[in-house]
């Protein structure tokens, strides 16, 4: 790229008021990346949506139909992709938002000291209460419109230790019933940061193409290195299974699921990106990924990760900086992976017209296999098959799906 063009780009970016280098943006140059012959394009159009946005897990969500971005500023706001305008809602105390089906988003807001769950249609702006009698911190839409996952963490800080209560409830759409899926109380010595634990518990959301949530527990044995114990709890069967351990001296970490649900991207204690394979139970270091960040976010193709203001290929290669001074920034991909909303301490930015890297994308399980797995889970839940039968048949299904 010529110096003249670089200068022009910087001029344009500064004119937009962006706190970034954004070297590759607007350059219209295809950037070689990945294995030989593969190319990815970072050609994207950037625009600033708002100066003010909360930088925390659940402060921004795409609608499933990609028509809008909802984000928490001084109130809950809706940015329309098509019209390019922002509409404010009267939900001033929104604390967490998540995408729902179509143009719907789900909201956790605070009202008179208690939490309220509601839905908002971003097209019609119709706002409806969903009474649950719980005080959740987060809400996630369960796939296929099966219901809502309501998650919370409570911290009681004592002088010498902290008590943390984690819980997850499933609100079933078919019956309206609420079932507790997960509950755990942990004692951690010393003082702990609530925001860190909240992010670690809430950032991953639901495991893709499965019916499981991720629970991470910090373990500090007397002799060996401290580690994070990873557990998967199935919200249909209620069964938990060990998914290995990750050496980590931090109390928690915000994990991001790969789109196939087989790997987790996470920052180590120094903010370097790591990948954990939950099937092989091994952690991959990514030496070529030098970026430091806090909230990794895998793109829907599974080929790239937004991390600390950078786009990094999922094997750690091809790191490109989008934003300076963006270690704590969060990138939220649109459901088709063609747009990226970035929450930065200077505001919220939208990057449009991404062409996702198609090299080494995740292999998403076939819909038929997913359907059969869900059916098996239902049969187990309704006690029509035994646990042993379930395990055998589930494994057989998984093996046949790989072939």
């Amino acid at each position, binding site marked *: 790229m010529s110096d003249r063009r670089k200068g022009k780009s910087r001029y344009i970016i500064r004119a937009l008021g962006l706190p970034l280098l954004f070297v590759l943006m607007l350059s219209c140059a295809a950037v070689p990346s990945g294995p030989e012959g593969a190319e990815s394009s970072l050609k994207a159009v950037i625009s600033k949506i708002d100066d003010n946005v909360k930088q925390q897990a659940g402060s921004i969500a795409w609608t499933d139909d990609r028509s809008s971005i909802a984000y928490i500023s001084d109130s809950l706001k809706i940015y329309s992709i098509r019209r390019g305008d922002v509409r404010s809602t009267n939900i001033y105390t929104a604390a967490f938002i998540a995408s729902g*089906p179509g143009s719907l988003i789900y909201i956790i807001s605070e009202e008179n000291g208690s939490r309220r769950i509601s*839905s908002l249609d971003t097209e019609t702006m119709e706002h409806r209460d969903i009474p649950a009698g719980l005080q959740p911190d987060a809400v996630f839409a369960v796939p296929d419109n099966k*219901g809502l996952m309501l998650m919370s963490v409570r911290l009681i800080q004592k002088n010498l230790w902290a008590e943390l209560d984690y819980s997850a409830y499933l*609100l079933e*759409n078919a019956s309206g019933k609420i079932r507790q899926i997960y509950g755990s109380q942990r004692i951690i010595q010393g003082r702990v940061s609530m925001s860190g634990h909240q992010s670690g518990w809430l950032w991953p959301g639901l495991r893709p193409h499965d019916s499981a949530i991720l629970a991470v527990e910090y373990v500090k044995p007397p002799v060996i290195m401290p580690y994070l114990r990873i557990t998967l709890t199935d919200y249909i069967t209620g069964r938990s299974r060990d998914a290995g351990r990750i050496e980590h001296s931090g109390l928690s970490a915000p994990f991001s699921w790969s789109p196939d649900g087989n790997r987790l991207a996470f920052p180590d204690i120094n903010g370097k990106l790591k990948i954990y394979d939950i099937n092989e139970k091994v952690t991959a270091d990514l030496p070529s990924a030098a970026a430091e960040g806090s909230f990794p976010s895998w793109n829907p193709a599974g080929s790239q990760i937004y991390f600390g203001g950078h786009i990094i290929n999922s094997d750690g290669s091809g790191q490109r900086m989008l934003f300076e001074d963006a270690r704590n920034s969060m990138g939220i991909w649109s459901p088709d992976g063609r747009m990226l909303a970035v929450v930065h301490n200077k505001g919220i930015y939208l990057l449009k017209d991404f062409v996702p890297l198609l090299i080494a994308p995740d292999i998403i399980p076939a819909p038929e296999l997913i359907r059969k797995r869900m059916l098996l889970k*239902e049969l187990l839940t309704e006690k*029509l098959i035994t646990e042993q039968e379930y395990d055998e048949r589930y494994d057989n299904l998984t093996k046949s799906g790989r072939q």
Partner: protein
Amino acid sequence: MRRAFCFVFAMASLLVSCQASAKDICLDCHKEKTPGIVSYWSESRHSSEKISCVSCHGGDVDANHNRTATVTASKCGECHKKAFIDHSVSRHSIGLKSGRGCTRNFETSSGQTGCIFCHEEGSSKPRVKTECAMFLAQTPEMQKQGCDACHRVENRCDTCHTRHGTDISFARQPQTCGTCHMGPDHAQLEMWETSTHGVLYRQGKEKSGPSCVTCHMKAGSHNVSRGIATGIPESAELLRKQERAFMLDICSSCHTRSMASRSLEDADMIGKQSSAIVSEAFSLVEELKNEKLLYPSAEERPIHPLFGRNIVTGPHMLYENISAAESIYFRMKQFHYMNAVKGAFHQNPDYTHWYGNAPLKLSLSELKSEAALLRSVDVLKKRLDNIAPSDRSDDSASSDLKKMLRDIIDRRLRGDISEKEFQEQKDRLMKEKGL
């Protein structure tokens, strides 16, 4: 001389007879048509005091025959002044005096006389707050037989005294009071009959035990409200004390004043406690109303006679086309509360407790349970409505499989198929579904 005397006597008798005929133009016909009435009147003191049909009914034969010239209390009051005044200030005539009786107190079925009870003269504007929604919701026949037959006491003396007799022993019978003061809304007759007072009365009449009139119509007073301190506002403390003292004077003829006072104070407290339970129930029903959880809703009910398309839970509450919660509340305030309080004042422990206090508390529990149920259903409904649109139907292929699996599990449990057959059939079903 003897013959002359007989002639004079016969002429005098004829003259008297002719004079009577002139006065009682009704009798000639009514002796034939309603001999019972004429006979009853003939034996009364009215007859001997020359109070004729016309004296009370007036001389307008047409009006009388059209049944529009009924004898009201004010007519009786022309002679029975003290009784009329006493009655007028008593609760027996409260509807008439306060205007709360509204249409049931029409002296005639039409005309200005009736309208002015409720409306300002020459205007449809209500003169006083009427309290007749329950009456207005009835059929004309029920209004007459079910409501007016008792509430006509407000302006009719014959409710207690019969129409053509004057034997006051009829009115003094407890059963006469019991015509209205019985049943689920205020069972004073039953309470009294089964109390020590009633049993003593049955043994030796008024010589051994008190009847209704002993305590409520002292010395023949028609102010039946004397001595009743309940219902008087707390602010009118002096009046309450006066009435209580009046009743204690009556009690003192048989009991020590202190014992009677303690008994009535206990009843006062039971009244307050029962009232608190009813108030709690009222608040709950109001909450449910405001939360729009009462079914049928205001839109689904017939229009309220006084308040239109609204759910009314106050004094004008109806007992028809209402929700289960309102029904429970209605029984609490109209039946159970009355039994608890009036049972205590009439010294009937069983009515106080088992017909009053117990069902009052049971009903409050039922109401709370009903409220919890209504709220949980509402929460469930809102959840289902507001999460997201969903057809909520089970996938037919999976529901078929589940049904068939349940079937073979049942057959195995019944012993219709062996374990081996069960496993084979199960494997086949699972294989068919690719599982």
